[in-house]
């Protein structure tokens, strides 16, 4: 009976294909051009898949942790001996640093600079799944709009910039990392405050674990050295000011003799990213 009824209302596959194609194109147009939120789909998919991803990740993490433990025991012992030596050295250094710190504190108070980087309110989240496919560096975290996360919030780890929230569901959020090929961050050098643009780059990230920066405009005479810190700039409209992005690895002047470009090592270890902090504060931009 079932078979008979099916054959009565049989629509040729070609037409279904055509219909679905139109549907997909329409959906693409709606989400890309009109920025229509995909709320209900996110909600359903989030409740079905996120708990499972979380579970698998916890289990897999536990197993690989145990394996790593065994492997690293010996190297840890060697490291321990080395570190003991270092502790002694560092303690002597610490004394002098403390003196300098108090001096710095008083100077800061004088300049009233202590409010420059206020402690933002943050929420911790676990990375539950990495973007499938090998072209992009996006990942999912296990906190979403239910925990107060919104689109365009900044994500940090190890006090360095990880990326930005590009999409939220009720119980998950999608983060695009700064090493993603399509990522662009407006940055500046810490000491001279010269602006530049930091681009993720798949090739350079694959080859030597660095990302690119371009259009670094510095005045004639100032020399920016390798190792200089690049932080998010004050003119960025999505990233909060002063979050560390990375350290300059190579730098060369462009052919126009006005700007320089080069590579920088990200401050965050993206290969072993497990926990991140989401800053629950968005950059305030004056609406035009």
């Amino acid at each position, binding site marked *: *009976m*079932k*078979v008979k009824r099916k054959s009565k209302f049989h629509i040729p*596959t070609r037409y*279904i*294909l055509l219909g*679905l*194609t139109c*549907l*997909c*194109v*329409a*959906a*693409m147009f*709606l*989400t*890309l051009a009109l920025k229509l939120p*995909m709320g209900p*789909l*996110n909600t359903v*998919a989030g409740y*079905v*898949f996120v708990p*499972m*991803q979380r579970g*698998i*990740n916890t289990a*897999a*993490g536990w197993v*690989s942790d145990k394996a790593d433990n065994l492997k690293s025991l010996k190297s840890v012992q060697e490291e321990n001996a080395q570190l003991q030596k270092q502790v002694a050295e560092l303690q002597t250094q610490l004394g002098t640093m403390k003196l300098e710190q108090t001096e710095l504190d008083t100077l800061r108070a004088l300049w009233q600079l202590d409010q420059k980087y206020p402690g933002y309110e943050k929420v911790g989240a676990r990375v*539950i*799944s*990495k*973007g*499938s*496919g*090998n*072209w*992009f560096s*996006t990942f*999912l975290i296990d906190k979403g709009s239910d925990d107060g996360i919104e689109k365009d919030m900044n994500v940090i780890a190890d006090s360095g910039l990880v990326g930005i929230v590009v999409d939220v569901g009720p119980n*998950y959020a*999608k983060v695009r990392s700064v090493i993603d*090929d*399509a990522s662009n961050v407006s940055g500046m050098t810490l000491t001279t405050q010269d602006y530049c643009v930091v681009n993720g780059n*798949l*090739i350079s990230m*694959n080859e030597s674990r660095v990302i690119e920066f371009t259009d670094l405009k510095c005045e004639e005479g100032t020399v920016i050295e390798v190792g200089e810190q690049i932080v998010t700039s004050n003119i960025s409209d999505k990233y909060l000011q002063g979050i560390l992005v990375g350290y300059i690895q190579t730098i060369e002047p462009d052919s126009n003799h006005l700007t320089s470009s080069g590579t920088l090592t990200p401050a965050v270890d993206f*290969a072993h990213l497990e926990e991140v902090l989401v800053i629950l504060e968005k950059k305030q931009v004056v609406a035009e």
Partner: protein
Amino acid sequence: MRRKITVFLIIAICFLLQSTLFQIWSFASISPNLLIVVTSSFGFMRGRREGMWIGFFCGLLLDIFFGEAIGLYALIYMYIGYLNGMFRKRFFPEEIKLPLILISASDLAYNLLCYLLFFFLRRRFQFGYYFLHIILPELVYTILVTVFLYYIILKVNQKLEVIERRSAGKFV
């Protein structure tokens, strides 16, 4: 109904494995594409219609979690499923050559399309590098996984077909 639930489970498991476990087990930060294997193998095992629907849902899942816009991956996967469905008449369960060729071709086509859409259009022209370091390794890894995954899908499908034939026989 039984088939729909089973297929959904297969898609869900492959999606979860692809986005969690295989990211941890990636070689040189390359992970295999399990959803292509599912879409392609159901395509040539079951025909254009089923390949198309399964591709559509696999793509939709990727769109929701990792896509820029809803519908783009759905479109790509749907056509891959549909095109694979055209080879149904040439498919014999005992032979592994045709599935391997079709799945490899699907993965290759998918990644070439990804390169064109997401990288070529953004002026990343070093095709040689992307081919050698992203597309080719993913192809090799996917083929390795296919050898196991394809047999699982094949056996599940055969079991389903036996059950369906039995229950259809009851009604007639």
